[in-house]
């Protein structure tokens, strides 16, 4: 039995010469819904990419189920970790169902079977978009595409599902639906759902664990929403004044004024 699902040990990584994440260390021991928050440019998406194995670490180690990520083959990685980016390709002109079936690539042997098609359809139903099955992907709205991508991630049936801003293009009803679905799924299976979000209240309401990143690409802290989503954190990390109220046991953020313009400006 693995003692930790995801473990980052002094991870430093970036693109070319540019280092984005510096000295990141944290551990996820239990399956659940994990949400990474933080301002633009602190490396939230980079964090997801490095855990997924899409970019290499410059130093430090990423371990999945106690084993260094680099020790897994690409196929093994793909069976354990699913990844859904925030943007989807405009060049995908396949039908929605065929697009979702791509997620099955890591599970199927040679040809797509009827069982694969049935699972893909179930995933579309889970995302409430089964009516789009025969539509072309590039004809969908941004929100619909996002749900198709989520369905594709679901049928991969990974142990860890990495989602970069899964609710970014969704209306409020679908933001709540998707967040609630993922939370429910994580709580009833051994799946770890690891997301990035800009919505502090969604993170507060649905996440079991919140990872807070701050400039310049360092970890502010990791803990429960109650521990992490505080007035002090928002003032320090986002430089925004706010009030925190209690919403049935979870913190609710009421944003107020922007603080410290000069300090917050991106250094040239």
């Amino acid at each position, binding site marked *: 039995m693995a003692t930790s699902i995801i473990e980052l040990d002094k991870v430093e990584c970036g693109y070319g010469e540019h280092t984005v994440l510096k000295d990141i260390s944290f551990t996820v021991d239990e399956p659940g819904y994990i949400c990474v928050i933080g301002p633009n440019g602190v490396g939230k998406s980079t964090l997801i990419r490095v855990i997924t194995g*899409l970019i290499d670490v410059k130093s430090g180690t990423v371990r999945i189920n106690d084993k260094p990520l680099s020790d897994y083959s690409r196929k093994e990685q793909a*069976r354990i970790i699913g990844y859904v*980016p925030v943007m989807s390709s405009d060049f995908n*002109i*396949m039908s929605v169902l065929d697009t979702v079936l791509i997620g099955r*690539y890591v599970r199927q042997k040679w040809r797509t079977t009827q069982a694969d098609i049935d699972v893909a359809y179930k995933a579309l139903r889970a995302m409430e978009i089964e009516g789009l099955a025969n539509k072309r992907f590039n004809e969908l709205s941004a929100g619909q595409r996002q749900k198709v991508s989520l369905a*594709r991630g679901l049928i991969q049936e990974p142990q860890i599902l990495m989602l970069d801003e899964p609710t970014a293009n969704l209306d409020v009803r679908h933001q*709540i639906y998707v967040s609630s679905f993922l939370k*429910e799924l994580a709580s009833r299976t051994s799946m770890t759902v690891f997301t990035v979000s800009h919505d502090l209240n969604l993170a507060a309401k649905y996440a079991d664990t919140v990872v807070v990143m701050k400039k310049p690409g360092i970890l502010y802290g990791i803990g429960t929403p109650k521990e992490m989503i505080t007035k002090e954190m928002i003032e320090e990390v986002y430089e925004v004044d706010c009030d925190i109220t209690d919403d049935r046991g979870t913190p609710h953020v009421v944003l107020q004024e922007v603080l410290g313009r000069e300090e917050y400006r991106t250094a040239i």
Partner: protein
Amino acid sequence: MNGGTSITKQAVDEWLHGEYPELEEDLEEYHRFNHLKYIFIVACVIVAILTAGYALSIGEYNISFLQTYELLWQHLTGSVPEDMSIQDYVVWTLRSPRVLGGLFAGAALSVGGVMMQGLLKNPLADTYTTGISSGASLGATLAICAGFTVIAGQYSLVINAFLFSLIPMAVILSVSKLKSASVTTIIMAGIAVMYLFNAVTSLLKIWAESAALSAVFEWSVGDLTGLKWEEVAVMGMVVIPGLIILYLMSEKLNAMTMGDEQARSLGINVETFRLVSLLTTSLVTAAVVCFTGLIGFIGLVCPHIVRMFIGSDNRLLLPASAAFGAAFLLICDVIGRVIIAPSTLQVGIITSFIGGPVFLYLIIKQRRTGW
């Protein structure tokens, strides 16, 4: 508990354990469309076979349409009657290489187009995007105008065209390797190499004698005339395994359409896949172009026409494009042979003459080209 939570509880229940009685009914349209795709492929194959029979029957020595199949069968089973030896010679030795070469060329160029458009995520990409045409042209022009050939002998022109057509690809792959192969890098490197090669070709043409110039021009307009069995055999030895390899990669090509990162996250080695598929596509195209010259349009537009009928799932798009491209090229060749008989028009001219308007019509009618 609020309503949203109970709805999602039910949705997760369904996802984890759900059986849907209406599933079959809901998927009916998807399956029906899939069956139509297979029907389209079979229809293209039938059209190709019928056109092949007709192409074998026409010419100065007239042989009936049905007799051609009979003669082919008799030849393959070694049971050609004595009194049919002339007809057998005409069908088997004179006309079959042209027909088979046409089928290979059409399938290869069309599949090459699908691969390039899919790999480079560009609807304007075709088999020549990576500079194969400019390379082959330079190779042929060097042989014809400057007398420079890599190997001497009967096939010096063909070998020149083949080898030179692969040089732009080698340059592109080297550049890509240096600069982590992005799609834009490949397209831009292809354009740069193409301009460079075209400049050298133009220079050679300016210095060339008029007879050589005419020969270069004739080579550059794709043609199936005069193909011999040994040439078609070489073409087939590259095209058949090449197309099989590309077909086996069609599932990965589907994943690539979602973007490099998603493909990578599905366990695909994106750089290796791109390298192998570009190399295979180039080899297959070069094996055709060196024997036929430049046949335009097929690689660019056949994939789009097929997409209009069967969609963009590469697992079916590849075989469908192969069948459609083969049938289309052969039909164009037949038209070129009958339209101003007894003279013939090169197939490269016919493909563009027919394909252009047909494609325009389909774009206007369907208002979407698949992209």
